[in-house]
């Protein structure tokens, strides 16, 4: 019993530390956001890093996801003669769930890891201290541009995913399922509506915060040397992914209730 208690208490303590730290960091981010000027040059640099440089990865992921889902839906529905429902099903699933989800998970892996290791290395080499000692704020100089870049880039990348994944679905629909491409496109456009799109789009803002804030937090909290940079990077990716997966359910639920009200 006692042997079980020890890791459990230390886990609880670490968890509380994490929650407290994330809370403080989020508060500081919003304070800096509204109180002081934004470094546009740094922001644009980060949008390029986060957005443009992730685009190839996102496109490859999206095509693959679209194609494989189209194939699976097609095979499944063919037995019941429901092949023509593939476009609608696929479009709605991608717009509402798979698009934002896959985009965010890929970004958590690529960008979250990058942010955590970069900031962690800056801590180890005392560059974060130097930013402070020179009378400037690491939150404003380092954290804020990265958070804002994720908030701007993720929704755009998600839109790219939506288009590319549906295109992937269309290709398989035409080649493998022998659906007419014109029919497929028409079905996609006529059956999916704005609320499908907005439901997925709205989530990406939350997911962007789930990626950027833990990554910055774990990076800034590196203490003793380069080994911890690796640990911080791993933690950032794991925590972001969990937040995205678990958060998705709750956010979907809330959006669903809102949609019903409207």
């Amino acid at each position, binding site marked *: 019993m006692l042997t079980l208690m020890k890791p459990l208490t230390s886990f609880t303590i670490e968890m509380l530390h994490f929650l407290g730290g994330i809370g403080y960091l989020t508060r500081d981010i919003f304070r800096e956001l509204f109180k002081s000027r934004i470094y546009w040059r740094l922001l644009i640099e980060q949008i390029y890093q986060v957005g443009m440089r992730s685009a190839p990865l996102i496109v490859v992921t999206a095509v693959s996801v679209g194609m494989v889902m189209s194939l699976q839906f097609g095979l499944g529905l063919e037995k019941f003669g429901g092949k023509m429902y593939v476009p609608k099903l696929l479009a709605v699933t991608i717009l509402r769930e798979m698009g934002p989800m896959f985009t965010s998970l890929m970004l958590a892996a690529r960008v979250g890891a990058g942010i955590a290791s970069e900031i962690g290395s800056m801590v180890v*080499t*005392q*560059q974060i*201290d*130097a930013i*402070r*000692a*020179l*009378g*400037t*704020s690491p939150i404003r100089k380092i954290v804020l541009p990265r958070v804002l870049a994720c908030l701007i880039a993720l929704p755009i990348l998600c839109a790219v995913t939506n288009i590319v994944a549906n295109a992937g679905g269309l290709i398989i629909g035409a080649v493998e399922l022998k659906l007419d491409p014109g029919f497929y496109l028409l079905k996609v456009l006529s059956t999916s509506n704005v609320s499908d799109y907005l439901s997925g789009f709205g989530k990406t803002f939350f997911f962007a915060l789930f990626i950027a804030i833990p990554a910055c937090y774990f990076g800034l909290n590196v203490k003793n040397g380069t080994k911890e940079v690796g640990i911080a990077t791993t933690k950032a990716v794991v925590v972001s992914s969990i937040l995205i997966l678990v958060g998705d359910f709750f956010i979907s639920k809330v959006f669903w209730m809102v949609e019903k009200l409207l």
Partner: protein
Amino acid sequence: MKHKEQQPEQPTEAPQSYIEVIDFHKSFGEKKVHDGVSFYVRKGECLGLIGGSGTGKSVLLRTLVGLEKPDQGKVMVDGIDIGPMNERQLIDIRKKVAYAFQGGALFDSMTVYENLAYPLREHFQLSEKEISDQILSQLEEFGLDSGTHRLFPGSLSGGMQKRVGLARAMMMHPEVVLYDEPTAGLDPYNTKKIQESILKLKAKGVTSILVTHDMPTVYAVCDKVALLQNGRISEQYTIDKLKQEPSGAMTEFINGESA
């Protein structure tokens, strides 16, 4: 811990002190590094701070720019206790007090030029021409040839990084400079150049604390010397006195007879 608070807070001997540390305590976890450090530096003075490796000299300097918080005691800069200040309030202190990091702490994603421009761009409204003039003259001051400004810190030698770090710390024309082993790893020629820069700033009225193991530099630039031992200032002398009466713990430390 409590009883210490009843000690007199303001030593009467330091009327015009610019920097004053009073009964400073600092621990990292179980490890007690400072156990009641007190000293002061008057405006325009240079204090040499010596002590064994790991006695907490760097931590002390870091505390003086607010990078570390004291567990107990006061850290006064220009009459203000900076201990309880938050990051926002500390910005004004950090514009006055420059800390030259032991390892340089240069931004490795920026060129030397951008490193030196950083404090200028942040705190002054200057034209690009003015910035570049200041940077080039600063590089010359620290014995770095003019091509250096295009390089990234990664391609500089350790000694060069150190000098760029010093140059960056001094870009803002600070009132106080905290030097953390500025001459460690430098050749005699550059050591002399650093000494000259420190003396030049001193002549302009800059207050400074010099942490070093390099006694010739202490003799060349400091007005007084303090020895940090076992978490306290164990001895303090003016340079003249140290030159005249070689005895006591400080002499033993300097001669390598004790740690």
